[in-house]
């Protein structure tokens, strides 16, 4: 007798647990406002990334085409992957002194892991992390970027 009682108890418990599970899925089937889908390419217009999101390294320039990079190469040392290469040149200042200035700030996006170490190590806050994350390209070569604009100058007062 105890066997039979157990038998039917098992069946009852089984059906109950299965129906409990179906209740959950049934709830979501009938509550469509719970849908969490991100319609990514469609919501591009409204999509805002968090301001700290690390998408790529960029070098902000002001309206006078000036940047803050002194060419100290701290970021190049800080980068674990060697994705930053700074080529410097000697520039003649108006007062006659020769000073080291950046020629090109080469940034290999394809090597970058967005670890933020370069930005943290920069003493003059010349580089920051940009929020753009759509980096796919057809030609790998275009991932090698030069961050300083052509003919850009060092901002006054930054040493």
């Amino acid at each position, binding site marked *: 007798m105890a066997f039979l009682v157990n038998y039917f108890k098992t069946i009852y*418990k*089984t059906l109950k*647990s*299965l129906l*409990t*599970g179906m*209740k*959950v*899925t049934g709830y979501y089937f009938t509550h469509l406002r719970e849908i*969490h889908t991100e319609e990514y390419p469609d919501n591009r217009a409204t999509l805002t*990334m*968090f301001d*700290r*999101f*690390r998408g790529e390294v960029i070098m902000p320039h002001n309206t006078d085409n000036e940047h803050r990079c002194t060419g100290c190469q701290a970021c190049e*040392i*800080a*980068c*674990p992957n060697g994705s930053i290469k700074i080529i410097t040149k000697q520039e003649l200042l108006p007062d006659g002194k020769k000073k080291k200035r950046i020629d090109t700030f080469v940034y290999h996006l394809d090597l970058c*892991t*967005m*670890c*933020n*170490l370069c930005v*943290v*190590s920069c003493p003059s806050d010349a580089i920051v*992390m940009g929020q753009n994350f759509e980096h796919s390209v057809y030609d790998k070569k275009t991932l090698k970027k030069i961050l300083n604009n052509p003919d850009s100058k060092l901002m006054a007062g930054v040493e």
Partner: protein
Amino acid sequence: MRGLIEENIITEDGEFILNIGPQHPSTHGVLHLKVWLDGETIKKIEPHIGYIHRSIEKMSERLSYRNFIFATSRMDYLAAHINNEACALTIEKALQIEATPRAKFVRTILSELTRLASHQLWWGCTGLDLGAVTPFFYAFREREAIMAIMEETCGARLTQNFMVPGGIMTDIHPNFQQRTKDILEQIKGKYKEYDDIMSGNVIFENRTKGVGYLSKEDAISFGVTGPTARASGVSCDIRKWNPYSAYDQVEFDEILSNGGDCYARYQVRMKEMRQSVSIIEQLIDNIPEGDFQEKTKMVIKLPKGEYYQRVETPRGELGVYLVSDGSANPYRIKYRSPNFSNLSVLPAIAKGYKIGDLVAIMATIDLVIPDIDR
């Protein structure tokens, strides 16, 4: 026609060998298991690893002490924070400094959030491996919110690299506390749903109860750690035994179970999620003001010697063994990864069960393959 070569199906000894992986849906990565079968019953398992070896340890010898931390995010990518924290703690230990109180609190909160996110993913994947697709999406809904916190504060979702020797990289985002509280409320409201759809489901119970039994002795002798070992009754929570960061300032229970089977491992993880929520709740309103980072030198040089630091990742004990020769680069780094040890017990506990059980066992051991190979 070449015909059906029977050796392909069965070896000369009449053995049926099934190669599960390197590409297989339930190995969660490139793990290759060579399985000897008798019908559907597993006679023997031989894990073949190394498909995703990236020599993170060797690579770190070339990098400075500040730089090598980022690579550990790629080991156990579901617990990147905790891996990073382990490295940062090792360096702090060698430098004989401590992170600022604020950094300690934030580290602990972030680690527990990572643990929550990792357990969420594990919960979803366990359902997926057992054939229930839907829980995966419910798990990802909560995980997504945690990832948003990570993204807002750390700047990245998975490989955050937010830990630096002496503290955290930047201060927390102003929204951090509110968002964290919101997600905690959300998760607390979903416990019942998780139980309804998975834990209480009779099919799930039958699939996991009594399957993949791991005895306490075996767990110790194989070096199994983490929830897998705690489900066998081995008390091994580093957060309790060897508190780091702010774990000595919070009240929480080490979840132990004597079941040893898949269901016990499942329950231990489910309860750990509740503990993580409670830990974060204790800390989130009490983050002390102050610096988020202890001042360290630009180029860190560790004193000559050997240093070892261990932390509790969602999968077990991660140990960082660091040998310094006094220069700016580590002389040798060795990671004692939890997954490697946990994998080693798989052949012992899966023997005699069915193929379907193997999937359940792998799911509840919660293997992350890149952490095995490093």
